[in-house]
Structure formats: C-alpha cells, structure tokens
C-alpha cells in the first residue's frame, strides 16, 4: 500500500501536526513501508483465533464508586498558559 501526498497531509491534519510540503513525499514513503510491513500479517490465517487483548490473564480492575480524587483546582490549572476565575482560557473556538 502506498500513500499519496494528499493522504499524508490529511493524516497530519487529523493529528494536528504541521508538516511542510517538501516533507510529504518522504513521510509518505516511510508510512507506506510501515504499512507494507504490517500487511504481511494478512498472510497468516487467523480465522479461528480470538483477538488477543492482553498478554496477562486477568480481569479488568474495577474501582468502588466513591469520591477519592479532585478538589485541587490550582494544581489542575497549574500548567495552563492562561486561566481566569477557575476556568481554562483558550483561543476562541467558533461553532
């Protein structure tokens, strides 16, 4: 599978990564190589193999329904470039 420049550009945009035009072709080739490597797995017949979701034989750990966290607003806002009256302040998002 080979990725064209438009597809690479779209993937970059979905991931919010800025990629210069001159890098698109090189990245396209690299991504195509990775996809080609993964595609080799299609050669293996997995019809009767259930998906492996974890290499450890365990159940999902669950938590009791109790308030044990939060109530440290200053810490949560600590790394925010801007905050006001307890809110994060971000550039206007237009609907």
């Amino acid at each position, binding site marked *: 599978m080979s990725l064209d420049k438009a597809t690479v550009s779209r993937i970059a945009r979905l991931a919010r990564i800025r990629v210069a035009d001159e890098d698109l072709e090189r990245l396209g080739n690299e991504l195509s190589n990775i996809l080609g490597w993964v595609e080799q797995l299609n050669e293996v017949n997995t019809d009767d193999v259930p998906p492996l979701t974890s290499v450890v034989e365990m159940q999902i*750990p669950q938590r009791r329904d109790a*308030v044990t*966290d939060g*109530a440290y607003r200053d810490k949560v806002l600590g790394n925010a470039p801007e905050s006001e*009256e307890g*809110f994060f*302040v971000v*550039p206007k*998002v237009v609907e």
Partner: protein
Amino acid sequence: MIEGATGRWEIVIGLEVHAQVVSEAKLFSGASTAFGAEPNAQVSFVDAAMPGMLPVINETCVEQAVRTGLGLNAEINRHSVFDRKNYFYPDLPPNYQISQYKQPVVGEGMVTVDLEDGSVCEVGIERLHLEQDAGKSLHDQHPDATYVDLNRAGVALMEIVSKPDLRNADQAGAYIRKLRAILRYLGTCDGNMEQGSLRCDVNVSVRKPGESLGTRCEIKNVNSVRFVQQAIDYEARRQVDILEEGGEIEQETRLFDAERGVTRSMRSKEEAHDYRYFPDPDLLPLVLSEDYIEAIRADLPELPDQKKTRFVESLGLSEYDAGVLVTEKEVADFFERVADGRDAKTASNWVTGDLFGRLNDAGQGIAESPVSPENLGGLIDLMADGTLSGRLAKEVFDEMFTSGRPASAIVEERDLKQVSDTGEIESLVDTVISDNADKVEEYKAGKDKLFGFFVGQVMKASQGKANPKVVNDILREKLG
C-alpha cells in the same frame, strides 16, 4: 407523513440519547460528579489527561449500564471493549473520548411507547454503550477566548441508540418520555434535561412510502422534548423541499437553533468525522459473568409497564388512569400511599383530578405537594364514613392545599361535619315544607322539577352540611 407537492413523504427518525449515569464518582476517576460545583473543582489528573495517568473503571457505572440494559429488555454482552474515539476539542483534554465502538456492553432491546391517543408502538433499541462525557466550553464569556470547565469531563454517559423505528415528532417525544421514565424508575439517570443529564441527537431522513431509506442528517444536542419535535418537523420539511426541487440531501451534522426554530449546518464538525477508533490499550475488555447479570436482574424494581398492568389488573383502574399515574415514579408512589387500604379508583380520581389541577395551577410537581398522601387518604376516609359530602370534601381539599393541614383538623375547626342524623334533617325538611306551601301544592299537582328546589332549600338551611342522600330520602317520603 408529510404532504409535499409530489405526494406524501414518510419521515424516518432514530434517536441517540445521552444519559448521564447516576454515580458518586466519574467513569474512570475518583472525582465527584455533583452538579453545580465551582469550575474545575471536580477534576482529577486523570480527567485533565496529565501524562502517565491511567483510567480505572467505576464498578457502579458498569452496574448501572447493565441495569439499564435489562430495563430496556436488551441483550447484555458478556464481553465488551473500550475504544478511543479521536478528535480535538478544548473540552476534551486527552484528545480522545473513551467510548465503546464495535462491542458495546448492551445490544438490541425494545421499548414499548405509549402514544397520546392511547395506542402503543414498539421502538427497537440498537445498542447502549458506556462512554465519557466531555467538559463544558463557554463561548460567551469573552470576545476572543473560550472558557473551559472540566468538571463534567469524564462523567459516565450511557449512549442509547434507537433503531430508525420512529415516524413522526409525536412518537419521538413519547419515546423520550418513556425512556426517561424507565431510567428514573431504574435510578440509573435522573433524566434532568435542563441540567443536561439527558441529551438527544436526532437522525432524520425522508422517503416515499415503500422506498429504501433516504440520506439522513444528524441534529446534535437537542435538549428538550419540545425542541426535538420542532427540530424533526423543520428538518423533514427542509429535506422534502430540497428533494422536490430536484436536489440531493447531503449527509451532515446540523445544529438546532432554538430561538429561530430552525436547523443549520455545522460545517466545523465535518472533518472531525474521521474518529480513527481503536481499542484503548489502557483498559482490558469488560467481562461480565452470568451470576453478575442475574443478580442485577433479580434486583430490578417494578418498571412503568409492569406497574401499569398491576394498577389495571389488581386495582381495577382504567388503562388511561393507570398510564397517567405511572408516567412519573414519584406520582405512582404517591398514589399507592393514598390508595393503601382505600378504594383505588377514588384515590386515582383525587390524585389525577383535584390534586393535579391544583399542582398545575401552582406550577408545582408532586414532590412539592402541600397535601401529603396520608392527608389525602384521611380526606377520602372522611368521605367514606359519611362525615363529608363530596361538595364539602372539595372545600376541605382546597383548604388542605392552601394550609397543608390534615382534613380532620379542618373539619373540626370549621364544624363542617356532614349531618346524617335523620331527626335533625327531618326538622329542616319540615320547616322548608311549611315555609313553601305554595310550591308543595305545585309539586303535588305534577311539577316534578320542583324536587330539586326543595333539596336545595334544605341543603341551604343546613349550611351545606346535610347528607344529600338522607335529605333526598326524607323529602321523597314527606312529599309523597
């Protein structure tokens, strides 16, 4: 069905209802879910997506989802998987929402919806999955900034997806109301649409009857039953107009503008539609045992449909009255306390008639009723034992509603006790007869209609307290 220039069109509607799960803590963190806190006061590092933080699922949220699934007569999946739904928005700090995609916790189910005209329709449930809510963005606080509050980020939601079984706005409204009632009976969602605990996305398409499904548009975040109905009517008409002018419907996300009553395109969301779902590597699959599911099933409360059947079959109420009483769990509970040990039909009449009337006028719900179920029961007892006539009972009820006092205290204080003593009534009748000798003559000459006049006079003389039945009996006897 709506009429177009080229004939009739069928509207096809499917609803996605987002119901906030009733729980103390969030779906994957220990932060509180309480509504109305100071901004960002209920945010853990997990919710804020700080590096290295890991989600741990809240067992109660899982149980609530399973309970809801059972309440919707749905298949519970023994094995379900959490996926990441990727998109960028400031109120979603990890840039992905943990949701369930291909393997939701609940599969197909069925809801019986009661329509205004007394008929019912069955609406299929496609699935129910657990996911995280996003935070809240406030766009109107600052001219060129958006304010973000993450208190809601990470609260558990159940997304309940219906099959496209609904055909008009009335059915859609009735479906939401029924779903809301079931959730409230189950105690899995408080159903509060004003606070956003229950939100709705509406899928609408139109087609000529018998044709295959048309292209649909999704109207996002419609937050009242009335708006859902307005949005459906507007959107269906818009699509019919486009199709009849030879145009095509573009599949898109739209917003409902409540002020203007219209839907409009929400272009910003278009590109975001590529969500690139994949299983969340931080979470193992959710595996539920048979015993676990059966324990929850055994613990289910009586649901609206079952309660309605019981009211009709065991208490002898009409389908209609039973339907009205079970709409809200609080109303049904109130009624049952009134009816306890009393005539159910009388109790139902008082609750759905006089009490609802006064509550409506006062803009109050059943929870705020100044008349307690015990006091309303007391009033019914006073009618049953002959102390109060129907007319006096209404008077006493009015005062009970105003003052909140029990009927017996009001009867005592105002000396309203109905007079059933025959001797006392007989003397009143005698006085009326002797005072109206001319009318008695006319009556005896065949003017039967005057009987009512005599009853009225006796009642008046007793200040409304005479037992009307006794008055009638004595008058008939004396007037021959």
